[in-house]
């Protein structure tokens, strides 16, 4: 753990110097959204201060500069997830919009009454509701592969649910409510054996591990910038070029067209076909800066450091009487979801907040997961590369104290 430059990293995140209720901030709500390093903040300020204009339009210098930076960020995203081409990188608002885009374009074009879409029981609402909406419109059926009491996918049951009717498998790479990392290689292999395309919801996985979409051979991979130390309001849909080419556009407007008359419109080529209107220019550039920042540290080093943090937190949590970890398994990213005997997660959240500790208390937009574990909500501490063992000690001491006060 000593080799990971956590103090240097912490110094790059100005918000970590904030005091909350007169106590040093211990920010453990990273699964909801990550904080931003100065480098990302600076890149946005620099964009608006020196290089801002609309992209893909002007012949003037600023527009050319802004376009270069914007398209440069697309190149960075492409390299970051090892896509084949920048044509496969579509900028959207976030993982949620990316899934909705796939549901409304690929889904409407390829999924019909009686067809099936297969998800898992640990999905975020964003990977449930768009499919339910599509099923309602088309008469398709949503199938849900079950999880076990450790919060892991029951793979044999998942396999059984793949049928000739399955037209898409859409699963979470890493669960936001449990921390479980799905066996995506096996999932993709099982789907490929029947020629079924696979979408991976990488919103939670992307800041914690290196992702190689070509090695995975997934058809779609979606994620949000705000969980990747990048600005909020920006995200990525990766799709294999052939699939994206065949899909109808999502929204109509400027930038997504090549030629418009009142009788007919010719759509633009990839990736612009899916980027109608002026995009979120500055925040895309900010995402490029976040990727530069992460590359400098190294995703593998981040994953190793966070694994140590999680192991330490899990070991400490297991010592606390009355604490139950929700999703207690060995295939996890840095998320500790838990409940305490007779103390509601919202009380835990308010109590810890008074100590400067930010955690999430609630259903984590995964109500079916809560129902499965028969809890109304959980408390969730989620870690990032800038967290420390000392912060975990503060958290655990806080939990012990609040258990005492509740008696």
């Amino acid at each position: 753990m000593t080799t990971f430059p956590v103090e240097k990293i912490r110094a790059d995140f100005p918000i970590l110097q904030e005091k909350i209720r007169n106590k040093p901030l211990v920010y453990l709500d990273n699964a909801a959204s990550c904080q931003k390093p100065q480098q990302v903040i600076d890149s946005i300020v620099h964009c608006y201060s020196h290089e801002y204009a609309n992209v893909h339009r002007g012949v003037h210098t600023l527009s050319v500069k802004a376009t270069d930076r914007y398209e440069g960020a697309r190149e960075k995203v492409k390299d970051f997830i090892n896509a084949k081409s920048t044509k496969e990188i579509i900028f959207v608002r976030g993982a949620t919009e990316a899934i909705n885009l796939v549901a409304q374009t690929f889904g409407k074009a390829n999924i019909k009454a009686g067809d099936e879409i297969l998800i898992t029981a640990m999905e975020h609402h964003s990977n449930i509701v768009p499919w339910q909406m599509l099923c309602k419109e088309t008469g398709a059926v949503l199938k849900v592969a079950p999880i076990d009491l450790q919060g892991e996918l029951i793979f044999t049951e998942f396999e059984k649910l793949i049928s000739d009717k399955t037209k898409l498998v859409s699963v979470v790479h890493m669960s936001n409510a449990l921390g479980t990392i799905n066996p995506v290689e096996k999932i993709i292999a099982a789907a490929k054996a029947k020629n079924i395309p696979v979408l991976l919801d990488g919103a939670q996985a992307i800041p914690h591990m290196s992702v190689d979409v070509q090695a995975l051979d997934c058809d779609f991979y979606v994620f949000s910038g705000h969980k990747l130390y990048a600005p909020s309001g920006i995200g990525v849909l990766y799709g294999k070029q052939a699939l994206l080419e065949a899909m109808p556009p999502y929204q109509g407007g400027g930038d997504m067209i090549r030629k418009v008359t009142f009788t007919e419109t010719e759509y633009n080529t990839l990736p612009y076909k899916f980027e109608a209107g002026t995009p979120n220019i500055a925040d895309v550039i900010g995402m490029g800066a976040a990727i530069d920042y992460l590359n400098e540290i190294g995703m593998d080093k981040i994953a190793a450091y966070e694994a140590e943090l999680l192991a330490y937190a899990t070991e400490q949590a297991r010592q606390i009487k009355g604490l139950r970890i929700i999703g207690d398994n060995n295939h996890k990213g840095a998320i500790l979801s838990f409940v305490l005997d007779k103390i509601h997660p919202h009380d835990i959240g308010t109590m810890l907040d008074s100590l400067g500790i930010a955690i999430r208390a609630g259903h984590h937009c995964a109500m079916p997961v809560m129902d499965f574990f028969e809890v109304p909500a959980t408390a969730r501490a989620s870690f990032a590369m800038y967290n420390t063992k000392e912060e975990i000690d503060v958290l655990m001491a806080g939990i012990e104290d609040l258990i005492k006060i509740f008696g």
Partner: protein
Amino acid sequence: MFDDLRDLYQEVIFDHNRNPRNFHIMENADRKVEGFNPLCGDRLTLFLKMEGDKIIDASFQGSGCAISTASVSLMTEIVKGKTEAEADALFHQFHEMTTGKEEMIDLEAIGKLAVLAGVREYPARVKCATLAWHTLDAALKNEQASISTE
């Protein structure tokens, strides 16, 4: 330890959370309404026994945080023997206490409920305290469906 929270988590609240009053199903209830806060998963069922326009008994079932449990427990105590109009007036007083202006509150009428005044400093927790009262409001209006504070 947790000194900043003394206004929110008063001893009365811990007491009602540990030992909620009137915590049982009422078989012969005249009114039964479910309250649900989807944000935190708090869920309660409120039972009322009426005699004319008077609430002669109140009880509840369900699970929630300390604030919502204490709030509904205290509420079932205070509304017993009140007329519908009196209970409704109390609902508005309670609402004022948790979200509105301090000078509008009739401290005498509010009585023991004053221990919940602390939530006004915690906007994320106001709904925990008011869930019980919104459920009562629905019961008084004789709405049988479930109500939700979100």
